[in-house]
């Protein structure tokens, strides 16, 4: 299951929701807003998502991960809106019988999510300017 939320992600609630008595390994990845990107000091990040396609593509990604690395439970939540340094932007959790599947499925999910899901982030720099991440000319736009 994948979700998009405008409010703070509750990691403890998510973790508990993945409990399964057959699970011996549980792997989580969290994306945090950090204070720097490509040498520029970042003050906050703004995330935008097109939710219907985040959900449909995200569920495809979860199914692909399960086909390759059979897991018992998996869940992903992506936050949108304006986030501060240290805020949690994305949470991916996978519970499986053994640790290998949990690690590999979790990694697959976050890697594919970053490449395929219609989510964008705009960096707001300490200097007051901003730029969309992953766009070759973002820096130029941001510095205008």
């Amino acid at each position, binding site marked *: 299951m994948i979700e998009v939320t405008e409010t703070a992600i509750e990691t403890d609630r998510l973790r508990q929701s993945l409990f399964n008595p057959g699970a011996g390994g549980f792997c989580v990845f969290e*994306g945090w807003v950090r204070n720097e990107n490509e040498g520029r000091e970042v003050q906050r990040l703004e*995330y*935008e*998502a*097109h939710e*219907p*396609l*985040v959900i*449909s*593509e995200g569920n495809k990604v979860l199914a692909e991960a399960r086909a390759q690395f059979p897991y018992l439970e998996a869940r992903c939540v*992506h936050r949108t809106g304006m986030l501060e340094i240290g805020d949690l*932007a*994305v949470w991916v959790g996978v519970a499986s019988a053994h640790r290998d599947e949990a690690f590999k499925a979790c990694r697959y999910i*976050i890697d594919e*999510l*970053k*490449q*395929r*899901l*219609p*989510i*964008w*982030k*705009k960096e707001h720099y300490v200097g007051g300017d901003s730029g*969309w*991440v*992953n*766009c*070759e*000319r*973002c820096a130029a*736009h941001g510095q205008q």
Partner: protein
Amino acid sequence: MTGSGKTITVRYFAMFREHAGRAEETLVLDVKTAQDVFEQTRLRHGSMEPNGHCKVAINDEMADWSSPVNDGDTVLLFPPVAGG
């Protein structure tokens, strides 16, 4: 607009919304594919962005740039994604 014009709703996201100065517009366009929609709106809004790392969806389904567009379709133009 010609007799072959199709009514297409175009939705712009992130950087594209900023280029277009709007989130959405409905246009009558002489287009066959998603690529044609991208090119025509790019000209319209003076955007220089190539479609290399961009994606497109039609009626909320991911599509290829070569996918045909039909009268009444909604075309979503996605600049390079950066989740996580």
